[in-house]
């Protein structure tokens, strides 16, 4: 006994739909170009403006060097090889910090979101710590963990922790009870519930948290690299400030923006991938 519907799709209509798909593909090229154009519009305008005001001396070069000069500085660092060292070590610290921060946030966040007792125990303290600025942690970290790599990674992880934690808790709290009940009806235990229903269902919020966390991780890099670093983008920034070289400051800002964008782009791709099942306006 089986129910099934006849497949009466006539040749004609199948044909039609094939044609339509082709048409869409053909339209694709200009659409792609248009997207790229739009995406580049603002950055290019901004750059042009910037180069303009510095070229024509509207802003003194020692305050705001022209983009070309900054590119030159970065280029020089690339040529003498120091660029890769700075970028590599910062990226390494960031990714480790991100990794650990995320793991701890997911564990504690799930616990807090799932159990009222855990919430009353941990949440108030975490919320209080959340407002402490990255710079304020520096002396405490020097005191507790010294100035080695672990200390730097931990500080970055701390930064990543907060937004991820917040979004994990918020996400889990807004998971539809109806879906959780399905899991319970199948006799899943607490852990399975988290893994099979709550995490996937709170994935949108979690991924937003990851992106937020990554951003905060980047912010904490500077503080982390005050813990006795002699390489890295944060070091570069502070160095630029200490030696008053706007070139170096802006080069480090540009590199921060660049790496930040690249890492965020990866997460954004992941987000689109992981959420293709969402029934929202875009999918």
């Amino acid at each position, binding site marked *: 006994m089986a129910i099934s519907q006849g497949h009466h799709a006539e040749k004609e209509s199948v044909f039609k739909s094939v044609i339509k798909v082709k048409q869409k593909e053909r339209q694709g090229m200009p659409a792609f170009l248009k997207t790229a154009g739009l995406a580049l519009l603002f950055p290019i305008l901004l750059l042009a403006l910037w180069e303009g005001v510095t070229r024509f001396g509207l802003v003194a070069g*020692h305050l705001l060097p022209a983009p070309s000069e900054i590119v030159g500085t970065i280029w020089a660092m690339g040529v003498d090889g120091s660029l890769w060292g700075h970028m590599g070590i910062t990226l390494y610290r960031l990714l480790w910090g991100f990794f650990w921060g995320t793991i701890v946030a997911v564990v504690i966040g799930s616990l807090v979101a799932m159990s009222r007792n855990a919430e009353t125990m941990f949440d108030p303290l975490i919320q209080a710590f959340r407002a402490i600025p990255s710079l304020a942690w520096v*002396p405490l970290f020097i*005191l507790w963990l010294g*100035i080695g790599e672990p200390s730097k990674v931990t500080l970055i992880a701390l930064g990543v922790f907060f937004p991820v934690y917040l979004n994990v808790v918020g996400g889990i709290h807004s998971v539809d009870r109806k879906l959780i009940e399905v899991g319970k009806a199948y006799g899943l235990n607490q852990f399975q519930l988290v893994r099979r229903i709550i995490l996937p269902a709170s994935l949108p919020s979690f991924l937003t948290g990851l992106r937020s966390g990554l951003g905060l991780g980047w912010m904490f890099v500077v503080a982390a690299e*005050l813990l006795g670093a002699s390489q890295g983008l944060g*070091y570069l920034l*502070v160095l630029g400030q200490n*030696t008053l070289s706007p070139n170096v400051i802006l080069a480090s800002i540009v590199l921060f923006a660049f790496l930040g964008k690249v890492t965020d782009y990866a997460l954004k791709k992941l987000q689109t991938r992981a959420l293709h099942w969402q029934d929202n306006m875009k999918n």
Partner: protein
Amino acid sequence: SGESDAGASSPETITVDYAYYSPTSLVLKDQGFLEEVFADENVEFEYVLSQGSNNALEFLSGGSVDFGSSAGAAALMAKGNNAPIKNVYVYSQPEWTALVTGEGSEITSVEDLAGKKVAATLGTDPYIFLVRALDEAGMSEDDIEIVPVQHNDGANLLANGEVDAWAGLDPHMARQELEINAELFYRNTDFNTYGFLNVREEFAEEYPEAVEKVIEAYELAREWAIENPEETVEIIVEEAGIDASVAELQLERNNFDNPLPGQEHIDSLSAAGEVLQSSGNLDDTLSVDELLDDLIDPSFAEEVIE
């Protein structure tokens, strides 16, 4: 001096800092004098960058470094907060701070500052310098408007005219001199506190001979720097990534003559201490003299420098 049976007198690793504001430390690191002095001992060295005096002192307090370079006044403040440090050596007498205005400013003397905006970084040497200069001119902080910012921001504020004057610090100051023709309208070498090499008290008690050897290496570096000014500039340029002209100017204003902590340092710092106390940066129930007594310990250097 310096001789001892290997191993017993030195720890396995010694962590020293280096800082762009201490050319000697850069030379020391670059030329490997420490390795030279400790050649017959099995000691490893770690070099840690200090971004500023407070950074160095934090590292020292937390035990992250054994030797740290700081301004004398900063060391005094740290001592006032019970930091277990000793000053054992003076790496230079730098004239790293002065009062600066923009090109063509009508401010030519400290008196002209009355009612003007002056950028300064609270608690640091330039700030102490400013307060002492005001004091000397019979004025006080209340007669001007202090804009508390970080050193680099102060330089920028001066450059774009947001403040009328700035208590400057090298190399920012050297750079502003060269770039915007900033004028150092008030200079006074005596109001600069010295460049102090500090050691953790615990380390000094445990390894007094190692302290002497480090001082020995610093002496080698100091002499080398005096003899090779061009190479020293090169080292600064390479390490700190600043322009050669800025580095030259900075080095010019460093006096490497008297490395032995002594009365002139105590005098300078007790004057600074008073200013700090009256401005609330240092607990005024403490006795500056006692603090200095605790802080400055020339005995090690005396052993080495004869």
